């Protein structure tokens, strides 16, 4: 039998890098998170179920996941548009807008929450007119979506931008010479090329939205059963020294978000792996 020859790599040894990766991930992610389960294990199954199945908790989950998904979807569509404009056209102030995109990353989330509330509340600049049209943003579930959209904006733009830049102009021209119209070129050539990046951006924006706390608590009004998000409920439990209850809620969120992210990753991997081979 032929002996397998070791591949030479730039970084030293698989053993060292993998070991480092594991230690790093363990210290920062796995150990803290496993404590979550240890803590919630102090509850019996029936107690655990009681915490989880509480209507107030269920409503909070619904709002958290629903608003995050909606905000991420919104960001995927609009983020693609922003990325498109920023890569395809030159216009005065392009650099400025490019820089603005990153602002939600840098801004303390509380500041974002307060300013969004100011603008979208009943007598705010925009809220005033929306209120007149019968749309309530601040202190309503819609406000949560607005806050999460703001927070997640950079993710899609920043993941799609480099892929769009990388797309050869000639590929689009080839499509045109073969008789494809603009929409066909976009749908059949450009979109499949962008899909993996779009999915990554969606997953990041969604994950960010699930964990967001600072900006949401200001704009939502935190009314139980209506505008209360799961992270806030966890905070409330902690303040009442109900550590086990708080970790139970957290554990469910963790598992649910992990499964959803895994799903998105698998989908992304499948749509992206094909043309990377070779």
């Amino acid at each position, binding site marked *: 039998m032929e002996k397998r020859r070791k591949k030479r790599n730039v970084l030293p040894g698989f053993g060292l890098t993998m070991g480092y990766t594991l230690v790093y991930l363990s210290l920062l992610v796995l150990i803290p998170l496993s404590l979550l389960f240890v803590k919630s294990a102090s509850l019996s199954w029936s107690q655990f179920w009681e915490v989880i199945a509480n209507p107030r908790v269920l409503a909070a989950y619904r709002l958290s996941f629903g608003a995050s998904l909606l905000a991420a979807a919104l960001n995927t569509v609009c983020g693609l548009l922003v990325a498109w404009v920023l890569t395809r056209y030159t216009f005065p102030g392009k650099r400025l807008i490019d820089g603005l995109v990153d602002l939600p990353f840098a801004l303390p989330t509380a500041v974002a929450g307060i300013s969004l509330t100011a603008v979208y509340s009943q007598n705010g600049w925009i809220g005033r007119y929306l209120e007149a049209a019968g749309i309530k943003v601040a202190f309503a579930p819609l406000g949560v979506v607005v806050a999460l959209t703001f927070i997640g904006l950079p993710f899609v733009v920043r993941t799609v931008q480099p892929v769009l830049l990388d797309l050869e102009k000639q590929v689009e021209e080839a499509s045109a*010479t073969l008789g494809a119209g603009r929409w066909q070129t976009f749908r*059949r050539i450009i979109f499949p090329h962008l899909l993996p990046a779009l999915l990554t951006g969606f997953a990041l924006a969604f994950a960010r939205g699930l964990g967001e706390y600072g900006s949401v608590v200001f704009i939502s009004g935190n009314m139980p059963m209506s505008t209360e998000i799961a992270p806030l409920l966890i905070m409330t439990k902690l303040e009442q020294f109900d550590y086990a209850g708080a970790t139970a809620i957290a554990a469910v969120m963790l598992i649910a978000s992990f499964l959803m992210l895994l799903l998105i990753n698998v989908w992304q991997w499948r749509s992206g792996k094909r043309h990377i081979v070779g």
Partner: protein
Amino acid sequence: MSIEVQGISKAFGKNSILRDVTLEIPKGELVALLGPSGSGKTTLLRLIAGLEAADQGRIVIDGKDATHTSVQERQVGFVFQHYALFRHMTVFDNIAFGLQVRPRKQRLGKAEIARKVNDLLALVQLEGFGNRYPAQLSGGQRQRVALARALAIDPKILLLDEPFGALDAKVRQELRRWLRQLHQTLEITSVFVTHDQEEALEVADRIVIMNEGRIEQIGTPHDIYHYPANPFVYGFLGRANRFEGPFDGIGQLPAHSPFVGYVRPHELEVTRHRVEKNALQATIQHVYAIGPIVRLDLKRAEANEFFEVEMTYERYQELNLQPHETVYVRPRTVKVFTGEKGLVSAR
């Protein structure tokens, strides 16, 4: 289908790329647009395809004015230098693309598309490669897929932008011959852009030589090579030595007025002794003795002029030439362009 280009001008910003270009390509011909980079040849090709809009002039394809029709309507097969294949599609889907994006009424059935794609795969000698992705193919194979994709839409004309530019020398040779044969079987009017004069001379029925946005000469490879219209064409088609007069050292030319003469390196004869009193005296600067042809760099005596001579290896051995020796050079033919003063540069 014939192509007529009438008085086309094009500028990008302040840079004038094409200046009043007029060209006629008869049906079924394989024409090469040849010129140095920046001569406007690729822009001309893109204008014919409709990928670029002309500032002035008309483009007529098959007797119909196509100046203002879109790329999609022109039905041209276009092959890009860097293939421009759709990376996320298999070879099969790449070739089928042009058939699948047709309006529903004109679209062929699935089975028919499959049959056509398979025929094209056979034509470009890539049977069995239908399920591969472009990333799994070599450069030559990718370019053949690109060609099959362009042919799938039954184009009226086939346009190729430096189709072999990104390939290595050996594959380029093969594909050149293959394109020639393919053109003979398909008889489709084809235009290809190249900066490689050898490629143009070998493949094309006719050559259009371009320089700085203008056409310098149009003709068959034979005509262009043997009867170049001007110094640019002469210099572009092969190595050229430029001699500036007046002097009585070259050929049988009279020594009266100032003139400029051109001689190809292989048309110069080298002797060790002055056989004829008109021969040019020179010293050998460098000898490149690799392969069947030996090239010498010579410096003309009493002038700061350098020129090249080519001879067979046998002749070189016979003469037993060494660097820094003095030799005598006599041209067998000299090309003189009327009207050229001693100022115009040859290259």
